[in-house]
């Protein structure tokens, strides 16, 4: 199944755990350090440097781009490390997450509650997945280098629906 990004609530409802999906459109990159900053900003009532409404976050810290490419190897990182830092972002309208591996039961429950979706991409396939990324722009926390928040364009990016908006999980 092919899906365009940004996601809509209608599209999310159609996605079922175990489906293979090819995603095309913009996603935001963020992993541990960026999540920590976003959640700290939310906790202190500051405005976020990015609008999370209907966005999808890809948990990735890419390699530097070789000369003739926009990005280096860019596979997913372990999503479970973001579990404790995810719900505040869902409250801000985040609709999709792309990572690897299982999530906590709290997150499976939150994915159901907020009617969003968690996809998994193939961990360790960074060279292959980078071929499906066409544009990269740093949006925030540039000092974090590979961990900065970037907007990237993904094209026919292969993922599996791991937790759907009904709370059904591939890992349960």
């Amino acid at each position, binding site marked *: 199944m092919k899906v365009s990004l940004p996601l809509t609530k209608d599209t999310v409802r159609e996605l079922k755990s*175990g489906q*293979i999906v090819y995603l095309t459109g913009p996603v935001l990159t963020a992993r541990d*350090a960026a999540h920590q900053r976003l959640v700290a900003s939310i906790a202190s009532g500051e405005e976020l440097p990015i609008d999370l409404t209907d966005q999808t976050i890809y948990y*990735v*810290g*890419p*390699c*530097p*781009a*070789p000369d003739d490419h926009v990005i*280096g*190897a*860019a*596979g997913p*990182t*372990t999503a*479970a490390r973001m579990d404790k830092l995810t719900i505040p972002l869902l409250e801000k309208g985040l609709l999709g997450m792309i990572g*690897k*591996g*299982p999530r906590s039961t709290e997150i499976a429950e939150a994915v159901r509650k907020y009617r969003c979706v968690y996809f*998994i991409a*193939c*961990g*360790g*396939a*960074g*060279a*292959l*997945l*980078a*071929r499906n990324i066409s544009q990269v722009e740093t949006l925030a926390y540039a000092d974090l*280098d*590979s961990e900065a928040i970037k907007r990237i364009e993904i094209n026919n990016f*292969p993922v*599996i629906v791991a937790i759907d908006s009904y709370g059904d999980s*591939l*890992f349960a």
Partner: protein
Amino acid sequence: MRKIDVHIVADKIKQLLLTSNTDLPQDLLILLKAAEQREESRLAKFMLEQIVSNAAIAKENQWPMCQDTGMAVIFVDIGQEVHLINGDINQAINAKVAEAYREGHFRNSVASPLERVNTANNTPAIIHYQIIEGDQVHLKVAPKGFGSENMSRLYMLNPTAGAEGVVNAIVETVKLAGGKPCPPLVVGVGVGGTVEKAALLAKRSLFRPVGSPSDDDKLAKLEKTALARINDLGIGAQGVGGITTALAVHIESFPTHIAGLPVVINIQCHAARHAEDVI
């Protein structure tokens, strides 16, 4: 005494880091392809196909196969007849590690532990020195990503726990890790010694050709038992369910204290990067 320039040692390490991050060892590739052929789960096959083609893309383009190009773990075994000359070997190695990560377009993944400030050149490397007989320097290099390193565990078992206790610890570790460390895994195990000795044995075991059994028949049997039990868990490639959760279990052992049985399980993801050379 044979004189060896520390810069020659450091240069070799740089080359090993560059090749190991881009070229998967053949022994591993053969097992991954076999796992892909054998797999019946649709989703696990989808993942294994990507893993296998990713390795080809990385090799062809000299790209790192994974964005987590790891901490540089380096074993330097120095013959006692060798005199290392022309400078500080630690400085020389770290300078070449930084060069390798810069030139290879590898990610800088090393940060201070509490402040989390990135050192911006992937140093310091983790360097283990050992004195061996002879007049050669043996180098082993393994860039280690932390998706899998994070899932490693230490058990201080009772001395009476025996082989069954060891296998239970291995299987429990893999089960707790689930899909997080990028299965299919290679599971390195150190049994005996002390806390740090068991950890080093586990790490070193990952340099064996993947799937080659231990020289010790009893350990080889344990490796087989542990691997069968791990694959019965059904975690599968990337945790999506499937028949191959691990490609191999490697166990190394060492005498230990009468009061204990340390076991370290060092989890290695499918990108089991390692390379070695001799000077």
